[in-house]
């Protein structure tokens, strides 16, 4: 009797420690409740005249502006330009970061040669280079790509390096004693072991990518979403400005969701990610 009641208590406290698992409301509606409420408040506040339209236009007005931009094809064109810049910059910066992270994680010599220098450069906020970059490249594409690539480089470099260096040495020893070749050792132990950390770098890098692109496009561009917002500002089109900000937010979210999806796909062996996907 007593034993059973003790067990019950233990069960209860263990459950209390974990966040309560509630049944998701009809197909995961709950995360959207707050945004929708805010949207309604915004629309209501605008309609009642609490929020002047020169400060923050109604959602309906923003929607109308969005519609107009879509119809004219301006939106699609700007999105294409921005997305291409983001992707190219990310691939260049991420590619170099990944390659150097691997090289420095695997080879002492390579790390001795480059790591200190890279750690020093890392301490310069890359956006501090904007004036210099404008002097070098003007407002050409290279300026944006350079800044994005530089911003993305470091999170991916650091996390790849960290991942490779922190692969369980016991597993590596096992692989060696089981006669794995160098390429097998890399493909079957080091890379998969570093992958969780690499994904942290990718997700962080995506955040930096959008941030850099926004700054670069508002300061030095004649196309893209950021340019669209700056251009609209000159004509006091607050609705377009707000819409441009929303597009950025949407794209940031989209990139992050994609990365999370890939993460869950690639790391399904890890109980931490498995429980998330269930």
């Amino acid at each position, binding site marked *: 009797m007593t034993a059973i009641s003790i067990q019950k208590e233990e069960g209860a406290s263990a459950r209390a420690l974990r966040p309560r698992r509630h049944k998701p409301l009809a197909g995961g509606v709950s995360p959207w409740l707050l945004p929708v409420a805010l949207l309604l408040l915004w629309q209501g506040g605008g309609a009642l005249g609490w929020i002047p339209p020169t400060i923050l236009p109604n959602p309906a007005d923003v929607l109308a502006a969005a519609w107009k931009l879509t119809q004219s094809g301006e939106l699609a064109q700007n999105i294409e330009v921005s997305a291409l810049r983001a992707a190219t910059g990310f691939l260049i910066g991420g590619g170099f970061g990944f390659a150097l992270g691997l090289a420095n994680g695997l080879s002492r010599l390579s790390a001795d040669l480059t790591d200190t220098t890279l750690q020093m450069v890392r301490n310069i906020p890359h956006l501090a280079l904007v004036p210099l970059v404008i002097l070098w490249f003007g407002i050409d594409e290279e300026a944006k790509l350079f800044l994005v690539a530089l911003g993305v480089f470091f999170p991916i470099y650091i996390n790849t390096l960290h991942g490779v260096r922190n692969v369980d040495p*016991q*597993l590596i*020893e*096992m*692989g*060696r*004693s*089981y*006669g*794995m*070749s160098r390429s*097998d050792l890399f493909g*079957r*132990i080091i890379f*998969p*072991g570093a*992958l969780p950390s690499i994904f942290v770098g990718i997700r962080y890098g995506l955040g930096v990518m959008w941030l850099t692109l926004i700054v670069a496009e508002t300061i030095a561009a004649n196309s893209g979403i950021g340019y669209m917002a700056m251009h609209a500002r000159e004509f006091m089109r607050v609705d377009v400005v707000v819409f441009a900000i929303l597009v950025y937010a949407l794209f940031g979210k989209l990139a992050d969701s994609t990365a999370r999806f890939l993460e869950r796909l690639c*790391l399904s*062996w*890890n*109980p931490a990610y*498995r429980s998330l996907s269930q």
Partner: protein
Amino acid sequence: MSHAPATIPDVSRQDRLGLPLNARHISKAFGETSVLSNLDVFVPAGQFLAIVGRSGCGKSTLLRLLADLDQPDAGEITLGHGVDRRVQTRVMFQEPRLLPWARVLPNVEVGLGADGRTPKGRERARLALASVGLGSRAQDWPSILSGGQRQRVALARALVSRPRLLALDEPLGALDALTRIEMQKLLEQAWLRLGFTAILVTHDVAEALTLADRIVMIEDGKISLDLCIDTPRPRRRGAVELARLEEQILSYLLREDAHEPDYVI
């Protein structure tokens, strides 16, 4: 028992796997501290040798040298007539050391090296997995297995390539008492069936007595006790004879003139 019947057929007397291991004048030091000094040990083909001794006496160090995980400072170690020890030796560690990102069957295939990914290799891995009673768990992630099951997968991985020498460093140390007895049986069965030479490091004298043909004790970098255990198998746990031997070994280990720790509590 849930163990499937042994699926690997018995190996006939003449092609039993074991090769003799010969270590001569082995020395090993880490920095200033000498761990092994001029140690000799010869392990005949197919013998089950247990290494016991106080914590820190150099059991793991010796095993790592014998298994070619480390190189001795001096001395020579040979397996058979100059067989490549790295290829013919498999090691089981205290931790299972399974690849968490590979399912159970691919983990066993690791034991076959490059052959593991051929259809034939896969089939061998499957058989090895079945022989440790986990045939139905081939597609599970290691993380959902129990500690004992993981160690059984590690045993299958170690044995799938039919090694000539199996080196075990307290492989059952982290298991609970019951699982440990099960694993001891499994290990003994595999050894009887395949006939590899086995070297087991353990701090558990009773375990050494259950499994080994011979027990050596390491003290001060040398072998201080070398004991043949010819009690017939299968050995009954808690048999009077084994209990007496255990008592003798322990009292030898704790004898007056043996090194006491430098501190007093």
